[in-house]
């Protein structure tokens, strides 16, 4: 087989992807006179992202679950055109789209007797993602994950140098509704699906260098240390304000200009001013009204008045309750800063996150003047605007503050609040934070280094995981980041990918939706017996193959297409990402599945077992220990025994044992 063009290089499968190998072998074995209908899934996404296609044969994708039906239509059309005898039709999909959502269409195709080969690429799970409200650190500051676009510069953790680097975002993937869990450390929290990988400190014992490993959320134990962001100092700079067209007296509706100077770029003074504005200010742009709800006597009033004169070279007016800094130009200026409108919608804009430390601190000081108070050595900031609190929390984290969680409380209806009785129960939140003391690393170097491996690192620290809990089903997204394959979401370093249980997920497998835990050792059911289900339809050919045995797979595909009628081949395809093994371990892993008897390779022709790959069975542990998804089983002899029984049953059922 020359590098023929039926499945071309340049697709975007992960390195060492078993499915890419199998798909290529299948189409090469079937030849150029083939039409393929493909379900939605990894294979479809990595092989045909517009305007690229890896397929050298006519190929169609419609939906997640209907390739068997689409192929039925193709076959019917070919019969109508009188071309069926010369063209092979293949329907293919992953295990989920075959055994779960697509089972009905597959069953219909088999029962109707279409001359189609159905190939199931069985990677034993749905592959994975972050909750939509995650905030991601980018070159332009903090952005919602939903706002990230391909090409954006995203901050990532360089796994060799442990430094903060900017990498390009090369993909935004919508992963749909998934169950999400909240991971909390003392100062951070993030929502992600259970299979989302995080960077965890691995202690390699006394005298050895510690390293970092990726662990999925479900593998993380309370007490593990995740890598979090502590500072941004390296890349920070003042923000250049957008120039606005200044209004002049005599312009439309402008009778009176309250002349002010506008600063060119941010400085601590203006940041403190804006901090107060976010807490107590309002603006009505059309009227050029800027006001602050600062009653006479409040400390912030004098500070604001002073700042206003200093920065804008203009005077404020005030009454008992309010301070007014009315100016058309000031209103337009503030309008460009993306601070949001109204108490519930004010926000800390992305650019604030990229300011130098002193400016950020001045901003926080301003916020505190408006809505904060001290409580002993700790500070407390109160707001009914939860998004604002969340962003403030992340801002404080980039300043290396210790920040507690967001506490939510409810003020009952009727409580007097800003001189008015509340009309209904109203929710508000607060966060407490304090400056982190510097550890004396010179005096106690090793102790502190043990506590925080990254203590000398300007940008990152490790923090202990304090809890992981389910937060229900939410829409999720994921990003693909070039080079480092990680990014910083909600202040925590996360890997850019994800695995959910399907009907073909093996017994005791740890996936997102069948996590192992105190009361579970993973997926509670054995694999759905798809080959048997297909056999029960009375079809002429059913086979199991493996990407680990390429010649066997090729032979089975060739045999299948030589037979008229519906055929089913299920190919075991390792997924380095989902199964958690090294990319170059694709072959050993695939082979061990067969050699332990867990994935028997057999052939049925017209309902009779006509072929099987015989083995000298190896213990199932040898297979299980090669992959992260079974790691939780290795100290659990009882569960291993159950899995060994599955293998033993297979060996007996298909008479796999090689007689010496």
């Amino acid at each position, binding site marked *: *087989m*020359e*590098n023929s*063009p039926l*499945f*071309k*290089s*340049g*697709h*975007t*499968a*992960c*390195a*060492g*992807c*078993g499915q*890419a*190998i199998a798909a*290529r*072998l299948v189409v090469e074995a079937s030849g150029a006179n083939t039409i393929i209908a493909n379900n939605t899934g990894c294979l479809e996404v990595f092989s*045909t992202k*517009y*305007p*690229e*296609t*890896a*397929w*050298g044969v006519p190929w169609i994708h419609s939906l997640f679950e209907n390739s068997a039906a689409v192929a039925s239509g193709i076959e019917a059309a070919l019969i109508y055109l009188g071309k069926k005898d010369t063209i092979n039709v293949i329907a293919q999909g992953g295990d989920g789209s075959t055994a779960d959502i697509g089972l009905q269409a597959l069953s219909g195709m088999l029962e109707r007797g279409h001359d189609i080969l159905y190939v199931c690429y069985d990677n034993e799970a749905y592959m994975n993602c972050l909750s939509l409200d995650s905030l991601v650190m980018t070159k332009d500051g903090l952005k919602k994950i939903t706002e990230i676009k391909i090409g954006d510069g995203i901050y990532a953790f360089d796994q060799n140098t442990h430094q903060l680097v900017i990498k390009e975002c090369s993909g935004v993937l919508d992963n749909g509704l998934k169950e999400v869990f909240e991971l909390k450390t003392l100062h951070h929290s993030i929502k992600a699906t259970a299979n989302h990988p995080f960077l965890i400190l691995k202690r390699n014992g006394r005298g050895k260098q510690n390293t970092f490993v990726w662990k999925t959320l479900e593998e993380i134990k309370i007490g593990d240390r995740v890598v979090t962001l502590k500072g941004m100092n390296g890349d920070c700079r003042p923000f250049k304000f957008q120039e606005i067209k200044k209004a002049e007296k005599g312009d439309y509706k402008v009778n009176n200009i309250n002349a002010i100077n506008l600063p060119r770029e941010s400085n601590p003074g203006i940041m403190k001013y804006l901090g107060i504005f976010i807490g107590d200010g309002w603006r009505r742009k059309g009227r050029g009204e800027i006001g602050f709800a600062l009653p006479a006597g409040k400390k912030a009033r004098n500070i604001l008045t002073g700042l206003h004169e200093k920065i804008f070279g203009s005077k404020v007016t005030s009454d008992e309750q309010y301070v007014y800094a009315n100016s058309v130009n000031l209103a337009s200026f503030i309008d460009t800063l993306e601070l949001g409108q109204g108490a519930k919608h004010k926000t800390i804009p992305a650019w604030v996150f990229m300011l130098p430390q002193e400016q950020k601190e001045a901003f926080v000081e301003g916020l505190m003047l408006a809505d904060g108070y001290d409580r002993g050595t700790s500070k407390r900031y109160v707001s009914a605007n939860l998004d604002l609190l969340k962003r403030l929390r992340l801002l404080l984290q980039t300043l290396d503050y210790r920040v507690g969680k967001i506490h939510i409380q409810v003020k009952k209806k009727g409580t007097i609040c800003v001189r008015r009785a509340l009309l209904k129960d109203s929710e508000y939140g607060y966060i407490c934070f304090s400056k982190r003391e510097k550890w004396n690393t010179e005096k106690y170097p090793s102790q502190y280094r043990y506590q925080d491996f990254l203590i000398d690192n300007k940008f990152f620290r490790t923090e202990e995981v304090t809890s992981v809990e389910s937060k229900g089903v939410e829409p999720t997204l994921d990003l693909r980041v070039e*080079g480092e394959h990680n990014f910083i979401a909600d202040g925590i370093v996360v890997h850019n990918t994800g695995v959910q249980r399907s009907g073909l997920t093996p017994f005791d497998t740890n996936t997102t939706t069948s996590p192992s835990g105190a009361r579970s050792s993973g997926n509670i059911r054995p694999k759905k017996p798809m080959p048997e289900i297909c056999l029960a339809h009375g079809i002429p050919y059913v086979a199991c193959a493996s990407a680990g045995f*390429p*010649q066997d797979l*090729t032979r089975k595909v060739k045999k299948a297409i030589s037979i008229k009628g519906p055929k089913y081949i299920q190919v075991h395809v390792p997924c*380095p990402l989902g199964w958690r093994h090294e*990319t*170059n*371990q*694709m*072959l*050993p892993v695939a082979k061990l599945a067969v050699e332990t008897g867990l994935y028997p390779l057999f052939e049925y022709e017209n309902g009779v077992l006509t072929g099987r790959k015989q083995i000298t069975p190896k213990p199932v542990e040898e297979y299980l220990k090669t992959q992260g998804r079974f790691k939780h089983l290795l100290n659990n002899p009882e569960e291993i025994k159950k899995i060994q029984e599955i293998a033993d049953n297979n060996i007996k059922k298909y008479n796999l044992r090689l007689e010496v």
Partner: protein
Amino acid sequence: MFGPLNVKPAESKGDKTGSWRTQVRPHYLHKDCIACRMCLLICPEGCVHGKEKNAFWADYNFCKGCGVCADICPKKDIAMVAEESKGEDK
């Protein structure tokens, strides 16, 4: 008409996925090759070329450095070498 997003394979050049390699690449030693073609068969990218003994090569424009070819080679005639070591490859 824009919309059906139909693509002819001849018009698709694919992504140059060779840039994904971070650590290692396969180095075809061309010493003990028996032209069994297993490397060509197993490559997930389909980027291994060659017909004759000791004449197989991987297209580094596309090779993602997974190492499966080195693993399957029965004569151990493919070595995974560090990405930095340039010069000796094809």
